[in-house]
């Protein structure tokens, strides 16, 4: 009988060994890094003063906004439909973006040339920015689109982050804390932005309404980093805390984590899982559409979202009420076409509330009134309803 | 190969020895407290009705099944611990032959021989042909096994057991499915193996087969070993029977009882018109047969006939295994 017991030993030990290996990996990575002691203000200054680094890395973006999760089968086809531009297709992508995690490879030469490769399953969406040209390529649809931007170092043409350029810019995207439009970290037309770009947006709007402190040092993509914690002082926002991992060596933000109130898991996080601080090969930034691809030369520049935050190609000016974390974006009546709220994808997300239809997530809220006006902000629904009623 | 074939043939040593060997499936004991001893060089008949635990015992001896209690040693080494050292010296036919139906008989033997890491590759071709010839399959060796009859498969199974010189052959029901001629050939084969000094362990439910070829036998019943020894020992252990033909059946029974015998039923002969037959088991230690007649006559019993029958092996077998009999242990 003892012999039988011995024979089962490997089977009993193997899961333990596997578990050990799996657990040992992260533990090693999280070994406390020894970095020079700095105050929160010093780290903040380090981050603000940091320059775009030449790098190649892999970004992991996850969002847990408390939205209904759709099986991959249902939304997986969305990317292949993007050629057929239309609100529904764009919204399908938005849903996929809001619910599914993403992995993207980022290549920056530090001098304004950028490439983002959003790695989908069996497909890839590329944004190649070199000089005044931005190419986007969607391998599933086999389409390439060429855009022209004004200034490589001052693109000023960054999109609202999540919406792909070919589709309609989507409300809700701009509800992350207001971002500064001009930053060399921004990748124009890219669906995924670097932590540096997002952090720059947040830090440039930093005001006394935010408590800045330092958390325990972390290691992100093998780089030791400070953990800069920004906590809104106001209770009027849904944002509980924004944590920026700042590279201890060069001040580059490596990871941005947004925590929503009443939720343990990060509502939104984008950070490097792998990072090499070296200039990528120059060939990475030259793009020639492959033979067989449908090529479009876009006469329209990349959708603007700067001083006059626009929706729908600049038809409707957006105004801001409130300040800081509790700011509410308002778009006047007619911004949202009638009937759009009943498209299948939106119908799944929106719920009828007093005063219109609302998209409530753990991090931000969008209210569409019956006349097509739109209110959005990182605030509870009641604040939006109030703003709507006050008009 | 470790040791020559002669090593197993040394008299006095045991080719198979078990102590308290047992196998339980749940609460049911398939084999219970088995103390088996197969002397080296013997042709050992392993008897028992179907389901008496013979095949389970063989599986444990070959390391196919794990004993739940007790120990077993084969060719002097503990099983299943020394499995790799022992099994190359053992040829086996277990519970009917089984082969890859889409391979030829020859290819099957090549495959099985290759399965053993200790089998010399260089002589494989020669050994396979020799084994095929020995069982009379030389002509059919190129045919696919699915085209074989049961008897041919049985022969191929024997050929597999004969692939190498063995010290012990374990043959489970080797004549199953064979025609009378095949049965004779198997008997001859076993005799020639025994002549070469190989210990042969034959399990069978056919008594006649065992009686003809074996030097030793053991009898299983419901998972227990009920007898073992040389055939002569088994026969003599069988109880002799005394039969008295007399009209005075009642008186004869009384006399037999007085002599310490247990008289059986009175069976009428010739429709009860003539004398009746009174039988009694005659244990070896009981009174001599001649004293019984004297006693009967002395008591005035009219003896018309008197006989003492030494038990046949068949009687013994039925006595040991058949239902309704007390098993003498």
């Amino acid at each position, binding site marked *: 009988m003892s012999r039988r017991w011995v024979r089962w030993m490997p089977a009993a030990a193997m899961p333990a060994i596997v578990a050990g290996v799996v657990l040992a990996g992260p533990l090693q990575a999280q070994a406390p890094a020894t970095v020079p002691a700095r105050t929160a203000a010093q780290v903040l200054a380090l981050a603000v003063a940091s320059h775009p680094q030449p790098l190649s890395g892999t970004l992991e973006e996850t969002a847990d906004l408390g939205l209904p999760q759709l099986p991959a089968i249902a939304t997986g086809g969305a990317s292949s439909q993007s050629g057929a531009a239309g609100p529904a297709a764009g919204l399908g992508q938005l849903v996929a973006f809001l619910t599914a995690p993403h992995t993207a490879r980022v290549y920056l030469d530090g001098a304004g040339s950028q490439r983002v490769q959003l790695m989908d399953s069996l497909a890839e969406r590329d944004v190649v920015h070199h000089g005044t040209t931005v190419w986007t390529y969607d391998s599933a649809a086999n389409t390439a689109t060429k855009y022209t931007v004004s200034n490589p170092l001052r693109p000023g043409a960054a999109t609202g982050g999540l919406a792909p350029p070919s589709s309609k810019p989507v409300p809700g995207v701009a509800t992350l804390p207001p971002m500064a439009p001009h930053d060399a970290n921004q990748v124009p037309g890219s669906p995924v932005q670097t932590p540096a770009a997002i952090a720059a947006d947040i830090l440039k709007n930093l005001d006394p309404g935010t408590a800045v402190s330092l958390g325990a040092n972390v290691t992100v993509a093998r780089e030791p980093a400070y953990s800069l914690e920004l906590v809104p002082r106001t209770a009027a926002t849904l944002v509980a805390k924004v944590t920026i991992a700042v590279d201890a060596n060069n001040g580059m933000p490596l990871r941005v984590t947004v925590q929503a109130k009443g939720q343990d898991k990060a509502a939104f996080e984008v950070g490097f899982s792998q990072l090499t601080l070296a200039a990528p090969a120059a060939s990475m930034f030259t793009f020639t559409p492959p033979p067989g691809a449908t090529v479009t030369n876009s006469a329209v520049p990349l959708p603007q979202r700067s001083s006059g935050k626009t929706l729908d190609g600049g038809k409707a000016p957006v105004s801001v009420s409130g300040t800081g974390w509790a700011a509410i974006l308002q778009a006047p009546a007619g911004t949202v076409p009638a009937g759009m709220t009943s498209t299948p994808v939106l119908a799944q997300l929106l719920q009828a509330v007093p005063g219109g239809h609302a998209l409530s997530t753990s991090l931000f809220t969008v209210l569409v009134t019956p006349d097509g006006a739109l209110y959005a902000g990182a605030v509870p629904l009641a604040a939006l309803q109030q703003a709507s009623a006050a008009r | 190969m470790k040791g020559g074939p002669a090593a197993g043939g040394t008299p006095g040593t045991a080719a198979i020895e078990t102590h308290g060997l047992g196998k339980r499936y749940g609460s049911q004991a398939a084999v219970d407290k088995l103390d088996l001893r197969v002397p080296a060089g013997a042709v050992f008949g392993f008897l028992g009705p179907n389901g008496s635990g013979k095949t389970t015992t063989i599986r444990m001896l070959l390391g196919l099944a794990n004993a739940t209690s007790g120990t077993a040693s084969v060719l002097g080494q503990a099983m299943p611990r020394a499995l790799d050292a022992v099994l190359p010296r053992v040829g086996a036919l277990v519970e009917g032959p089984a082969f890859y139906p889409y391979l030829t008989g020859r290819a099957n033997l090549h495959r099985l021989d290759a*399965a053993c890491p200790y089998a010399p590759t260089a002589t494989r071709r020669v050994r396979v042909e020799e084994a095929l010839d020995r069982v009379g399959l030389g002509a059919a060796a190129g045919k696919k096994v699915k085209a074989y009859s049961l008897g041919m498969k049985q022969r191929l199974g024997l050929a597999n057991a004969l692939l190498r010189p063995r010290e012990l052959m374990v043959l489970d029901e080797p004549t199953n499915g064979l025609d009378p001629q095949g049965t004779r050939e198997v008997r001859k084969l076993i005799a020639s193996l025994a002549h070469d000094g190989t210990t042969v362990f034959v399990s069978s439910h056919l008594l006649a087969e065992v009686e003809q070829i074996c030097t030793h036998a053991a009898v299983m019943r419901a998972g227990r070993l009920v007898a073992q020894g040389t055939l002569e020992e088994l026969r003599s252990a069988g109880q002799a029977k005394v039969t008295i033909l007399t009209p005075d059946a009642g008186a004869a029974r009384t006399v037999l009882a007085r002599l310490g015998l247990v008289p059986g039923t009175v069976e009428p002969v010739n429709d009860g018109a003539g004398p009746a037959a009174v039988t009694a088991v005659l244990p070896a230690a009981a009174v001599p047969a001649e004293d019984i007649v004297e006693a009967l006559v002395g008591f005035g019993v009219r003896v018309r006939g008197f006989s003492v029958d030494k038990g046949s092996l068949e009687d013994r077998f039925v006595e040991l295994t058949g239902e309704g009999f007390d098993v003498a242990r």
Partner: protein
Amino acid sequence: MLAVLAAVPVLIAVAVRLTNGTRAGHGPVFLDRITGNGLFVVLTSLVLCTPLFLPLTVGVVSGDTIAGEAGQGTLRYLLAAPAGRARLLLVKFAGTAAFTLAAVAAVVLAGTAIGLLLFPVGPVPLLSGDLVDAWTAEGRILLVGAYVVLSLLGLGAIGLFISTLTDVPVGAMAATVVLAIASQVLDALPQLDWLHPWLFSHWWLGFADLLRQPVEWSSFGSNALLQVGYLAVFGALAYGRFTTKDVLS
């Protein structure tokens, strides 16, 4: 089974040839690229075969390993030979691995051959939109083949273990194939995303990462680790089960 697998690329190529191609975004990935470049026949076939046909054949072969011998009765003779239980298990797994290799090779070779025959071959556009020459592309395709073989080793180990549980080969085959499908279904449910990295099928289609420019190796590494983990766990389970099992067939 190898012939059936080899027929997949041939069927795809002939169908595309006869219908003059399809529009982008319809049908399986890469299908629309075939008319432009014959090498995509292989990739389309692998995309089609990896989730279903290949696991099916690997499930059949690995489920048959021990249970097939047991069902046929030859297992007792192999063990009495003596083949040695651990050795038999190793040989059987090696056989499964060799079959997996042969199966993927059948798809790759047949796909390459029919692609060269029916369609032009030239520089191949990768997922990133960059072009590489045909030789580099064929190298990438071989890498993808190696990736797929690696991907299926875990399933092979699972099949081997299931095969030691029963004497009915069909049962073991069916159970293995059902597991392969169940794993993919679970992988598609976002509610179970904590489980996804642990599913043996999680990285099956990750070979696309080898078709990016530059090659993304992380999924190859993760897949290799995962498969080795499955191999170790189910190999140990199969060993524990098989070496203590009563062979009663």
